[in-house]
């Protein structure tokens, strides 16, 4: 067990001294995941609202498909995007493979169904009188939608945070699309997989601790929003 306690000690040392390699990996992870979550939110929240309030044929099937795609396997997403952006793929000319952009695309696909599905639930849970009240106070269609989303703000934030939680912790798509290039596309999860494979536990444990802290913070934020919302 000595190697384990030694690795934990070294990992703490890396965190306390804000090791450059560690910091770069954490920053890359956050940058990619925050970007993909932001883009997924821009698309997912309005889409979720439209699905929730819209009346169209096949609405129920769309909702079932969304709920199913919340559990999309990350490696399948990685593989699919890879087939499009690899040199021989239809988008190969853009040279996206093994770049942070490729990782953002993969994570965007993972986060969007979660944000859409949870936004649908959040919007549906809102009292129908919100829209009616906004209209009678003079709101146009866009302002009415904004009033409904405003009323659902805590649940929408939970949806966004859940999307972020999904992508910050995923490894499959990031590994396939980013290629785990040091200082460029190496994220916390891909680095943990690599370092563990090499038997270098200290960096892996340090990253694991940070990832857990992020997960803890995300859950604390979600919980706090839920409490405020209720």
């Amino acid at each position, binding site marked *: 067990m000595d190697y384990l306690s030694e690795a934990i000690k070294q990992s703490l040392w890396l965190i306390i001294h804000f090791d450059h390699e560690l910091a770069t990996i954490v920053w890359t992870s956050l940058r990619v995941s925050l970007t993909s979550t932001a883009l997924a939110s821009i698309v997912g929240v309005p889409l979720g609202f439209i699905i929730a309030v819209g009346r169209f044929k096949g609405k129920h099937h769309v909702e079932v498909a969304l709920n199913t795609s919340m559990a999309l396997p990350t490696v399948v997403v990685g593989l699919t995007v890879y087939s499009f952006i690899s040199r021989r793929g239809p988008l190969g000319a853009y040279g996206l493979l093994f770049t942070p952009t490729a990782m953002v695309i993969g994570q965007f696909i993972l986060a969007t169904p979660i944000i859409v599905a949870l936004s649908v639930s959040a919007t549906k849970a809102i009292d129908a009188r919100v829209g009616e*009240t906004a209209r009678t*106070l*003079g*709101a*146009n269609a866009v*302002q009415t939608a904004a*009033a409904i989303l405003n009323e659902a703000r805590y649940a929408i934030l939970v949806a966004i945070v859940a999307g972020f939680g999904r992508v910050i912790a995923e490894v499959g798509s990031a590994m396939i699309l980013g290629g785990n290039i040091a200082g460029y596309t190496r994220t916390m999860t891909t680095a943990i997989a690599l370092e563990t494979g090499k038997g270098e536990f200290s960096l892996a444990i340090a990253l694991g601790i940070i990832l857990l802290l992020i997960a803890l913070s995300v859950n604390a934020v979600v919980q706090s929003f839920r409490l405020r919302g209720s």
Partner: protein
Amino acid sequence: MKLPETIYRLANVRKSYGDFVLDIPKLDFVRGETCALVGPNGSGKTTLLRLLAFIERPTAGEIRFGSAPVWNGGRDATFFTRRATMVAHPPFLFNRSVAYNIGYGLKLRGSSRKEIRERTRTALEDVGLTGLERKNARTLSSGQQQRAALARALALQPEVLLLDEPTASIDKKYARDVESVIRELTTDAKTTVIFSTHNYRQASALAQRIIFLSSGRIETLPYENIFKGTVHKSDGKTKVFLNDTLGFVVASEAVGAVHISIDSRDIILSRSPSTDQDRNCHRGKVVRMTLHESYARVTVDIGVRLSSVVSEQVLSQLQLRLGEDVYCIFDGGAVRIV
């Protein structure tokens, strides 16, 4: 006298909800009037208010606001919704502060922060909620929420204020505040107020016109000039006393506390008192006159407000002006116990 402008014109309007049908062949509202919708639950009061607030689209028929057709008229919905504001019952407030709720509609209209602040303060003062600006609106009591919703509508200074049972869940003390707000709007005559109520006394005290609804239809013989009183024998006559001094001769054998109604068409207006001692004759001041197509409705304050319908011809003969004295003359038979 200036011919009053029709603000709403409803023609052959129908609204169906399952088995319920609101059916209004013809109904007009005049700009600046205060009108009460009275009827039992399920009579269509709220549905009519929702149609007037443009929240609901009629199943058939036409609603005109001013001269513009509301639906299929090519105008943006906000053109209408920003002129008529409805306070629902129970009211709905956003899950934000009281100030946010009151400022919301003003923000939509592009009002400045200063204006929003000032109008919020005045509106809260009007409904007796000063000091609650920062409180979350959902934490208010149901009565306070109703008053906050009224303040939110008042702050907008709309052309039409539609109130669904405005005092239904409010304590008596604050109900009087709300009533005085409505009364002020009535006196001001700039805002058209249409409110629903179960309370005849409130309707007759506040409104110049009462529309009775029953099973989705307008009652053709509505009760008007409704008062509460007590029947006593006095000077050999049976009289119903509304207070210590004001009593009407009544042709009824009823005793004790009663509600009475006097058909506005049975009240004759005259410059001179009646010589017939058996008739009711009360002197009062003209407080309101509203011209309709072929008749005028004159409200006279004789201690209570009596509404009388007179023909245009009679009105021109009398040459009445606001504030002038006039006699209200009606038979004991016109006083109906309801």
